[in-house]
């Protein structure tokens, strides 16, 4: 029983991480049809900020991490994606790969290719003991922070003028522009939010792994992309749900696979995703805007 509880907690923690990454990707895809693989590098630059800033106290570290990720998100939008606005999705996708490789190679040039170890927080590294169950504080924080961000983003999208504009832009960008919605502002805001999500994701990820490297964003963003597809491309709820489902698949495999097969965890996980997509190719939640667009 205690073991099962432990697995459930782990699954929700994994899921929270993926949901956080997936949301950043789904937000941009919904609005401009761009699958931003350079989202991983927003996580990476945030993570390097943690290493480079030293130990000025966690509030400042988080502020700097998020700030740098947001700045890079806005910069990549302005420099790489804005000139391509209205381009075909494959063009945008390739551009995002280019940005991704560029930033990775810049990181190698400046910081080298060897992973750097860092200790984010000793407090986070400890565990809460509840009876016989030991719950890492980081897990609790990850789940709680993700929940707060999901609610905050939901409120932002539902209650604010900019939120309504973003939802409208995700449905039909042409029409919102003739209503006077400024395309540049909406897209920049979406990138800023994706940068914020990446920055917080970076902090939680580094707290977990204690390691920073130039390609650390690649796997998270790949998993997040799979979670987005699983949840239903273009749906924010789908991205979050996909993140948690993927987290559950991952944790189940981690717990149940015999040790001789443990190395193939990812292969099994992606296999499970393929089976799910065969059964439901449109993803778990179908975004209405995507339906009408096709």
């Amino acid at each position, binding site marked *: 029983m205690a073991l099962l509880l432990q697995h459930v907690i782990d699954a929700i923690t994994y899921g929270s991480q993926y949901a956080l990454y997936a949301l950043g990707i789904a937000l941009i895809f919904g609005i401009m049809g761009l699958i931003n693989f350079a989202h991983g590098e927003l996580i990476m630059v945030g993570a390097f900020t943690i290493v480079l800033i030293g130990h000025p106290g966690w509030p400042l570290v988080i502020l700097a991490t998020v700030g740098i990720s947001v700045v890079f998100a806005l910069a990549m939008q302005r420099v790489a994606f804005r000139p391509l606005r209205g381009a075909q999705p494959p063009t945008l996708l390739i551009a995002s790969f280019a940005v991704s490789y560029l930033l990775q190679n810049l990181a190698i040039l400046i910081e080298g290719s060897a992973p750097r170890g860092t200790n984010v927080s000793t407090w986070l590294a400890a565990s809460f003991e509840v009876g016989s169950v030991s719950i890492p504080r980081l897990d609790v924080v990850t789940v709680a922070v993700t929940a707060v961000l999901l609610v905050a983003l939901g409120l932002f999208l539902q209650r604010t003028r900019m939120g*309504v*504009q973003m939802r*409208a832009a995700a449905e039909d960008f042409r*029409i*919102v*522009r003739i209503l*006077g*919605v400024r*395309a540049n502002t909406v897209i920049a805001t979406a990138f800023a939010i994706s940068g914020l999500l990446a920055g917080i994701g970076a902090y939680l990820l580094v707290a977990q792994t204690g390691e920073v490297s130039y390609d650390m964003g690649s796997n998270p963003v790949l998993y997040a992309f799979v979670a987005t597809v699983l949840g239903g491309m273009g749906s924010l709820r789908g991205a979050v749900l996909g993140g948690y489902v993927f987290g559950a698949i991952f944790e189940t495999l981690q717990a149940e696979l015999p040790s001789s097969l443990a190395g193939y965890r990812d292969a099994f996980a992606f296999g499970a995703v393929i089976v799910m997509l065969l059964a439901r190719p449109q993803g778990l939640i179908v975004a*209405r805007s995507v339906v009408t667009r096709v």
Partner: protein
Amino acid sequence: MLRIEGLRVNYGRVPALHGISLHVEAGEAVALIGPNGAGKTTTLSAIFGLAVPAGGSIVFEGESLVGTSPERILRKGLALVPEGRHILGTLTVAENLLLGTTARRDRAAAAADLQQVLARFPVLEAYYRTSAGNLSGGEQQQLAIARALLSRPRLLLLDEPSLGLAPVVLDIVFDTLEELRKEGVTILLVEQAVARAVEFADRAYILRSGRVAGSGTRDEIQRMEDFETSYLGV
């Protein structure tokens, strides 16, 4: 107010407009009629910055609109009710209307305008909090017009507002346009319901195959012997 000279628009290599010229004076209601594919929608799209002209000029109150983004064109005092309505179906009626006030700086006046618009289209008040995608075609058209009015346009462009509407709803639409005209809103109307459009308008242009095939006042157009044939393009 609006002056278009020699406007050419191509879709890829296919020319859609071969250099049309037209003008709309302040306070006028002008109809743009013609068969399918004549270039009516393209003309409105070009005015609103949604189609890029290959040549010619579009001048609104002395300022060129060519190369201006749709969001800036709206801020110059134009509004477009696009063909097929294009309400935002995943949003509520209230949110659609809120988007109509995007460019307004005078929030208090915008709120008052919203009340006025809801009084004019009671059906929108009835469904205020529901998803706009659930509205009927006629209700969606009313929403699209209401939404455009909330930017307080001085020149209102309408593309086929009667398309697919029941006669009763059509009356509501044209009654609204009539009221707007009395309030001093200038109107450029693209319409399939030709007789109705010409009857409503002060002047009309007949477009055919991307060219202006004829133009005149309401009486002149109605007297044109070949009016039906020029419209049908036979």
